């Protein structure tokens, strides 16, 4: 409803930040996912956000970034190890991921605050002239 436009725009921001949180949690939970050296290592996923026409933001897509080589670790007991005993571990920078986690959380809270304030503002307008 374009009458309450600020609330709709903040809702799109909430959706994008929620998906960012999902991507970060996916990256962090797969930090120790080992793969055989025949495959690429697990790569961190980044959300690409783009502004929408008429206000708001949307997720334009997701990009995989990081080294496909990963960290080659010598683990002969691992069932995925090749004949040299190597497996691939992903190169996930925990510091960067947790920093992004804080940014995604604060962005989500900021958008929720916008929804609250816009609602109070519209209610103040509706209260004009009320006895």
């Amino acid at each position, binding site marked *: *409803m374009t*009458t*309450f436009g600020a*609330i*709709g725009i*903040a*809702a799109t921001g*909430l*959706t994008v930040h*929620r998906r960012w949180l999902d991507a970060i949690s996916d990256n962090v939970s797969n930090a120790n996912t080992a793969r055989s050296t025949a495959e690429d290592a697990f790569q961190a996923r980044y959300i690409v956000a783009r502004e929408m026409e008429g206000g708001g933001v949307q997720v334009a897509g997701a990009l995989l970034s990081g080294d496909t080589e990963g960290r080659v670790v010598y683990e002969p007991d691992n069932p995925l190890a090749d004949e040299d005993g190597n497996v691939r571990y992903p190169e996930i920078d925990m510091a960067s991921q947790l920093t992004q986690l804080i940014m995604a959380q604060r962005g989500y809270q900021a958008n*929720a605050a916008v*929804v609250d304030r816009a*609602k109070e503002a*519209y*209610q103040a307008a*509706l209260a004009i*002239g*009320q006895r």
Partner: protein
Amino acid sequence: MSVPSIAGISGTVPLAPSAPTTPATGTGTATASGAAFADVLGGIDQLQQLQSTADGLAVQAVTGQLDDVHDYTIAATQASLAVELTAAIRNKAVDAFNEIMRMPA
């Protein structure tokens, strides 16, 4: 009673762009403001749509199919705001009507 000078000014400033050609300047403002008020009344249909959207999202949230929790809370907020807006319109219209009916015959 109509004051010709004031009626002439108001007739040349239409309130709605789609106002039909006015036969007399006195009735010009009546049709223009009538079209604008009809648009406002059409907002009541949007209220019904907002309510049904909020109800559908509530069902999804309860059955665990909702991806974004904020979708439901924001839809419920917009529906309640639309209800307050409709109530304010009704109050103003009733007050204006009573004010006019109170005029001495």
